[in-house]
């Protein structure tokens, strides 16, 4: 008989494995857009009046302006502006040193490879997490030379005059509907000023990312290069936002990179050797344990840590539809092993490890935890609009006297203030409320804000179980109910999926395995009122015994499978491979081998505005590598003004997003100014990359070059939309436009919409456009040298993009090639 070795979950469970960052927002605006929201954003940021006025004017423009008539309305009309969160602020202040960046956010950035990048070559980095720039550092030499590189919000605070002079001058709020939207709601982005004659040798970089569902991101960037200076700015919109679960937490599996560390099923840390996405067509399994809220999906060949029921049954026969009885003794003595998911049956046991991490935080007293428990079930926070006071409020039923009394007592103990009690006789309710900023901060930091997104902080999750018991107790007093069957049962429901899973984890630490089941939302009637009920996650457990056949074995629970569903699936599946055996990690709490399928978050909107001012004789290069997930609308306005003899170059790479509409432009207003756009686009299934360039020649002897390269595949669509305008008196202008499109198959599409408005004499304008297909002969030639079909196609595609990649810093060129390779995988054969 094998030794009964308990599963040991590493002490560093959270740091090493829980790499989803719980959303600890200080402030999360409501969905939708209104004057109040815009004012609230401005107020939260303590902005000067002129900026608030600017925002409000922009909102009016946004409301008034129609969508662009020429746009791809089949996609654009799917944006629901009322469903979007317009502002999230993750931490209190911007961090200067990497060490000071909060752990959760750092973990997210780790996956982007930023720390290495920083150590190696970065001059400065700003990283945008949700809306705010949270990390930023600048090389000391540059600081001495007077280079300013700040988050836009910080820039406005520290250099209000400079910002006021240039902000909105290149792209007025009324420029188009999306620039108006950004002008009203902007948050984060970069502010850069390079003083006269300073040449910034190393690129300044920023990373942007959308992490929450229905989240809009509206960063605003302003770059000013003073006379004779030069600077290169790079923005990466890298990781996709599709969320899948590989553990207790939601994780963006596709953003896991080689060398990241995850926790394997033995509870030991293990480095990721490779992370892959592949196209999969076939059966996809949904494994539902008795807790259906912990169901997870995988492909049949992927092994899951389990104990087959057959091996632990008592000799008696199964009766009718009942499963054969299980011998607890046998079950606990059997070492779980990896079994292919396709071979799992109803009744087999899965392994659910219990987190063993304990890290006390004396700031979180028993009283605080009890109050947080009440907050979790009954509380909310808001800022009183007229009083401008932070409010924390708890709503109880009028009969819940002991709860009301305890809440008031706890508030007094924690804040020193007396809570107010407001009765609402109609609803038989009582509200307990208090004006307290510290309490509001405490609640937001550890519990989140809205019912649907409430989530506990890592600090709370790591506390000793004795302390967590207090939070659970008061939470269940509020949201839970107790009733008697053969045993006492406890039931609690929450609208937050993450919270449900966290509560399950906390209860596991108390020794109870709670099941999670989903009660689908929808229209409903309560007391004659029609309401739209949200999805509810319902937790069940019994404090007296384990549920059903669940057994505890060391630091794990053994949980029976209730159902194995099979369904055909076509689409990408993600897979990570670990460095060492066992090559397994956790999925929704259960140990599985590598591989799980994606769950798409709902659509998000990214609408940035970038303004560039190139003063005489300066040189600015702006590089973008955009790989938003395939459900992001990327509607960006980018424009530069180039004064005498200044050069502005836009390098623009678009791989991700559902719809991109982006036409970087240069207004050449000084003699001999130069503008260049090199843009590449890759459009796969369901994507439309509508990109191009605008060159406005408003001065003599100005020159411009546009090079656009696009690839469409699997029915993807690319468009080049360009404008070259030459004003009267702008003599001796030279402009050349070249668009090359490559079609990978018959389904895909590419269009060009070039516009030329020439009102001057003596100009040289060239325009050239080609559309080609990847030739069979090219593929045959490469295959005849031993390359696999897919390698051959990737090589041809990378060659096609070479004009762009050769201009990129090495790291980005490598990254772009890797992304192209990922996109090409599964496209052939």
């Amino acid at each position, binding site marked *: 008989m094998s030794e009964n070795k308990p599963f040991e979950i590493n002490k560093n469970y959270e740091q090493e494995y829980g790499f989803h960052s719980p959303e600890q927002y200080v402030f999360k605006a409501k969905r939708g857009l209104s004057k109040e929201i815009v004012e609230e954003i401005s107020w939260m940021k303590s902005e000067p009046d002129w900026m608030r006025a600017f925002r409000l004017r922009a909102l009016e423009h946004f409301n008034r302006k129609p969508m662009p008539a020429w746009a791809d309305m089949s996609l654009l009309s799917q944006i629901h502006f009322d469903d979007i969160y317009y502002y999230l602020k993750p931490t209190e202040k911007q961090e200067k040193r990497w060490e000071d960046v909060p752990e959760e956010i750092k973990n997210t950035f780790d996956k982007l490879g930023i720390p290495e990048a920083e150590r190696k070559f970065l001059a400065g980095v700003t990283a945008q997490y949700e809306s705010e720039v949270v990390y930023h550092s600048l090389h000391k030499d540059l600081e001495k030379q007077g280079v300013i590189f700040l988050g836009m919000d910080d820039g406005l605070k520290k250099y209000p005059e400079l910002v006021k002079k240039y902000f909105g001058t290149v792209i007025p709020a009324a420029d188009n509907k999306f620039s108006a939207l950004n002008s009203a709601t902007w948050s984060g982005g970069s502010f850069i000023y390079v003083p006269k004659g300073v040449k910034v040798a190393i690129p300044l970089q920023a990373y942007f990312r959308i992490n929450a569902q229905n989240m809009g991101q509206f960063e605003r960037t302003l770059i000013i290069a003073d006379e004779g200076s030069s600077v290169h700015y790079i923005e990466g919109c890298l990781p996709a936002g599709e969320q899948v679960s590989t553990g207790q937490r939601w994780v963006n599996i596709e953003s896991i990179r080689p060398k990241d560390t995850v926790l394997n099923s033995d509870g030991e840390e293990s480095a990721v050797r490779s992370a892959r996405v592949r196209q999969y067509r076939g059966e996809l399994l949904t494994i539902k344990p008795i807790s259906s809220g912990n169901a997870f999906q995988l492909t049949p060949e992927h092994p899951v840590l389990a104990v087959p029921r057959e091996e632990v049954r008592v000799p008696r026969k199964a009766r009718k539809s009942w499963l054969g009885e299980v011998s607890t003794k046998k079950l606990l003595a059997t070492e779980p092993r990896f079994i292919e998911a396709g071979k799992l049956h109803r009744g087999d046991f899965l392994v659910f490890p219990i987190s063993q991490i304990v890290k006390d935080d004396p700031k979180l007293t028993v009283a605080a935890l009890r109050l947080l428990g009440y907050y979790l079930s009954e509380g909310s926070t808001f800022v009183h609009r007229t009083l401008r006071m932070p409010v924390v409020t708890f709503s109880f039923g009028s009969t819940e006297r002991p709860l009301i009394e305890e809440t008031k007592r706890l508030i007094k103990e924690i804040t020193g203030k007396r809570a107010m009690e407001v009765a609402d006789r109609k609803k038989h309710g009582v509200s307990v409320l208090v004006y307290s900023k510290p309490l509001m901060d405490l609640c937001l930091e550890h519990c989140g804000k809205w019912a649907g997104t409430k989530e506990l902080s890592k600090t709370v999750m790591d506390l000793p179980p004795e302390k967590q018991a207090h939070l659970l107790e008061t939470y269940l007093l509020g949201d839970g109910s107790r009733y008697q069957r053969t045993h006492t049962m406890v039931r609690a429901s929450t609208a937050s999926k993450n919270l449900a899973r966290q509560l399950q984890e906390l209860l596991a630490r108390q020794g109870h395995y709670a099941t999670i089941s989903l009660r689908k939302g929808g229209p409903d009637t309560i007391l004659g009122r029609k309401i739209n009920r949200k999805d509810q996650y319902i937790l069940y457990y019994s404090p007296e015994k384990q549920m059903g056949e669940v057994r505890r074995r060391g630091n794990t629970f053994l949980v029976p499978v209730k159902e194995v569903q099979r369904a055909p699936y076509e689409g990408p599946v993600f897979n990570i491979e670990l460095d060492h055996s066992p090559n397994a990690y956790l999925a929704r709490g259960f140990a599985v081998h590598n591989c799980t399928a994606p769950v798409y978050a709902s659509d998000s909107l990214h609408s940035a505005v970038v303004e560039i001012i190139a003063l005489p004789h300066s040189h600015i290069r702006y590089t973008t590598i955009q790989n938003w997930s395939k459900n992001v609308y990327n509607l960006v306005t980018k424009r530069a003004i180039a004064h005498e003899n200044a050069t502005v170059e836009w390098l623009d790479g678009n791989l991700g997003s559902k719809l991109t509409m982006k036409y970087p432009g240069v207004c050449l207003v000084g003699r001999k100014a130069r503008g260049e756009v090199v843009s590449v686009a890759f459009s796969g299934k369901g994507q439309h990359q509508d990109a191009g360039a605008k060159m406005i020649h408003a001065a003599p002897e100005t020159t411009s070059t546009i090079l656009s390269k696009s690839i469409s595949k699997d029915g993807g669509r690319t468009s080049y939309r360009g404008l070259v305008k030459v004003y009267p008196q702008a003599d001796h202008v030279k402009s050349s436009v070249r668009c090359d499109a490559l079609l990978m198959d018959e389904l895909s599409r590419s269009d060009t919409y070039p516009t030329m408005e020439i009102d001057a004499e003596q100009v040289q304008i060239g325009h050239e456009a080609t559309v080609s297909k990847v*030739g*069979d*002969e*090219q593929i*045959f*030639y*490469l*295959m*005849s*040298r*031993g*390359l*696999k*079909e897919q*390698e*051959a196609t990737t*090589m*041809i595609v*990378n*060659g*096609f*993009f*070479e*004009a762009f990649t050769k201009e990129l810093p090495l790291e980005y060129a490598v990254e772009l090639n890797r992304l192209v390779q990922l996109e090409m995988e599964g496209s052939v054969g």
Partner: protein
Amino acid sequence: MSVPLLEIKDLHVQVEGKEILKGISLRVEKGQVHALMGPNGSGKSTLSNTLMGHPKYQVTQGQILYRGENLAGLKTDARARAGIFLAFQYPTSIPGVSVANFLRTAMKARFGEAFQPKEFRKTFKAAMAELGIDEGFATRYVNDGFSGGEKKRHEILQMKLLKPELAILDETDSGLDIDALRTVAEGINHLRGPELGILLITHYQRILNYVQPEAVHVLINGQIIRSGGKDLAHELEAKGYAPYEVLKEPPKEIVSK
């Protein structure tokens, strides 16, 4: 008897429904050079493409055995990795892909684990020097804007680096001036050895002045109508293909089995 390097048995090949090769049989042993001669449209390129597994060319009958193994169902890349090499008559260009990058990738594919990336530069440079190719070649895009001679030398360079066991040279001599022809022929002779079998496909006899074949075959209208020693080539040079054209229409029953 040892297994021949290449054995073609009664090979019939169709392109877009039209039969081009009508029953070819051929054996090439290790270390031998076989010349396959024929006029335009006789099916020379069809044979070389079929040997390399071009998906457009459909084998309807017969077999190709490479080292005794049937190549049917083996994809082009697998054939290449197994040591078959085709020097193209018209190598296609791959814009944006440098010669060095292309060759590094190809060598990695061919040799797998045995490929030493650190050694690549040295091997590559030495090979270019031996074939009299300028170093600047390495950074040019594959066949993009190459002259006829450069293209052919590039093919020979690949052959040298990929060390095939069976090389099919498809009209490598065509379109070359006399100096370029000599350089290419020298390259081929340089690569000849006991481990390499070569199928030299050509329209003209002149390359055979530099590369001495063990055997010569005449391909006309999809069939090998004569095989012989190197003297056969001279005979063809003197008389042309015309005397054989009489046999252009083989009896019907042979065509349809």
